[in-house]
């Protein structure tokens, strides 16, 4: 069952193409939408909410067509904008109640749901104070609350961690994760911070310049590679020579040594070599891929593949950028 399905969706303005034949399927769960500023994330959200007509192509949200059932979609979807949008002289409760009523909740239900939702996002006594005095973290929570108050099936969060300090970011990400796991609501999060999406999302969709770069589950992206990163306190060259002599394929990368894992015995070989040299072992970890690699040059990736000499790194065929290719992230 797909939550969002687009088919060759395009949005062209006179001077710029915001979306270019985007075809993607988003399944229930937390999905991260990654892209640089101006890549088309906000345009996509506008189209999905039925607020902006697409130039070409189709899109369905929760099974409803965005072109004809916009209002119905907006009743089932919550939206948290990226920018500041809260009037400073109104309290959180009053504001969210009003928004709940604008979503069609009767007055009593609106008040109850508001109280519940504000509690779930973590606002307690402060909910009665005017929002002008809130910190950024509290304001983001209110924005999330107004998106959740009418019990949507899907929420679209536009850069929810914008402007938060690291602790605040962790809390917000945890909250987002709970929105899916505890509340059962699917989430589409946009961001340009790749690290946090790796932690929070089940699936990732990467857009660049309006085109789909890659779409698959997070675990596929961050697969373990068959390479070991070794960091020692001294004498890397000697270690490199020793490991080379022992028959391992080693490559220096900065102050790290990348050792291709031939079999389980590789770990022991490295450990023994380090002990023999009498140096300290600072790190020995299996390398994982980062989403950022998608945005590095294609040439870098092919270099790694060559150096790896056939000891497969990424499932390379799937990893390189393919335009217009929609992967069903199941």
């Amino acid at each position, binding site marked *: 069952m797909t939550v969002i399905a687009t088919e060759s969706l395009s949005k062209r303005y006179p001077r710029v193409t915001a979306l270019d034949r985007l075809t993607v399927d988003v399944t229930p769960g937390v999905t991260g939408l990654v892209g640089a500023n101006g890549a088309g994330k906000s345009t996509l959200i506008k189209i999905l909410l039925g607020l902006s007509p697409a130039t070409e192509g189709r899109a369905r949200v929760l099974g409803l067509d965005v072109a004809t059932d916009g209002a119905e979609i907006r009743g089932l979807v919550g939206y948290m904008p990226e920018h500041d949008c809260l009037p400073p002289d109104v309290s959180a409760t009053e504001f969210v109640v*009003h928004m709940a009523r604008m979503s069609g909740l009767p007055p009593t239900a609106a008040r109850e749901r508001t109280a519940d939702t504000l509690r779930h996002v*973590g606002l307690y006594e402060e909910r009665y104070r005017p929002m002008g005095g809130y910190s950024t973290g509290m304001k983001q929570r209110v924005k999330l609350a107004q998106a959740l108050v009418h019990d949507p099936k899907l929420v679209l969060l536009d850069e929810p961690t914008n402007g938060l300090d690291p602790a605040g970011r962790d809390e917000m990400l945890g909250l987002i994760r709970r929105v899916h796991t505890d509340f059962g609501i699917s989430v589409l999060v946009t961001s340009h911070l790749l690290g946090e999406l790796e932690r929070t999302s089940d699936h990732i969709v990467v857009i660049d310049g309006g085109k789909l770069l890659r779409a698959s589950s997070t675990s596929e992206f961050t697969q373990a590679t068959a390479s070991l990163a070794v960091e020692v306190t001294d004498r890397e060259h000697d270690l490199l020579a020793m490991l080379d002599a022992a028959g391992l394929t080693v490559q220096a990368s900065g102050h790290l040594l990348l050792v291709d894992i031939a079999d389980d015995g590789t770990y022991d070989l490295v450990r023994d070599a380090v002990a023999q040299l009498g140096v300290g072992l600072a790190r020995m970890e299996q390398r994982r891929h980062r989403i950022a690699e998608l945005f590095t040059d294609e040439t870098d990736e092919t270099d790694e593949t060559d150096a790896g000499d056939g000891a497969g790194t990424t499932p390379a065929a799937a990893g390189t950028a393919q335009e217009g290719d929609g992967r069903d992230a199941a």
Partner: protein
Amino acid sequence: MTQPDVAAVPGPPPAAPGASPTDVIHNIGYREYEGPRLGRAYARKSLFSQSLRGAYGLGRSAKSKVLPMILLGAMCAPALIMVAVTVFTHMTHLPVAYTRYAVILQAVITLFVASQAPQSVSRDLRFKTTPLYFSRPIERIDYVAAKFAALATALFLLTALPLLILYVGALLAKLDFGDQTAGFAKGLVSVVLLSLLFAGIGLVIAAVTPRRGFGVAAIIAVFVISYGAVSSVQGVAASQENYDVIGWLGLFSPITLIDGFQTWFLGAQSAFPEASGPPNAGAGLVYLLILLGVVAACFGLLMRRYRKVGLS
């Protein structure tokens, strides 16, 4: 701020070690909403009532009640005085015709529009709350219609209440029932159109700028200057005994537009110099068309304005 993680864990709630008993009460978990979802009309009504109450400062801080209430008082006080005078001096008619009342107190009405139109729309624009509205199951026309109707209703209350006071007072003074009812009805019709016109112009000007002070100033300027210009040139025309021109000049300012309309269609006495209203049926029709046209144009302009602002 307490840890959100503790609060929302669903399921059987044995308190975490060291947690106070009140934490247990909070562990209800997320409840889905199965209740009714009322549609666009309900949302429109909610926005309408919130904006209407906001126009009189109800549901907001005490500071925002001061000005509207003072203006409401200033609007009704003369009516009360007139009623008192009529009753106690046994006059045979009200000192002021129902249709003339709003024209005399136009300054108060203008101040009300100037302060409350920005209060209604500028805030949403300044704090960029409009995307939150439009991401809900309402359309642009619902937002515009609700705001327009709310301000027009607020103005109607402001202008109709004194007329009601005059009416009741007139009946208490035992003036002729038929006359007074007819006059009251005509006054109401005139005041309905005035409310629509002033609300439309005020909202269009206020929606242009997110800065409230600017909106207030611009509305005052437009109403005062247009009225000043029209009445001075009418004065000049009067001194030249050019009565037709006086009648046509009234088209160029909101209050004189209403005045001209009611002179022709409601038989009111014109407030123009030498009491020369629209000179002929053609002019009268033009007054009606322009009046309705301006109201429609204001609605259209507001729709256009909010098309650009929908989702940022």
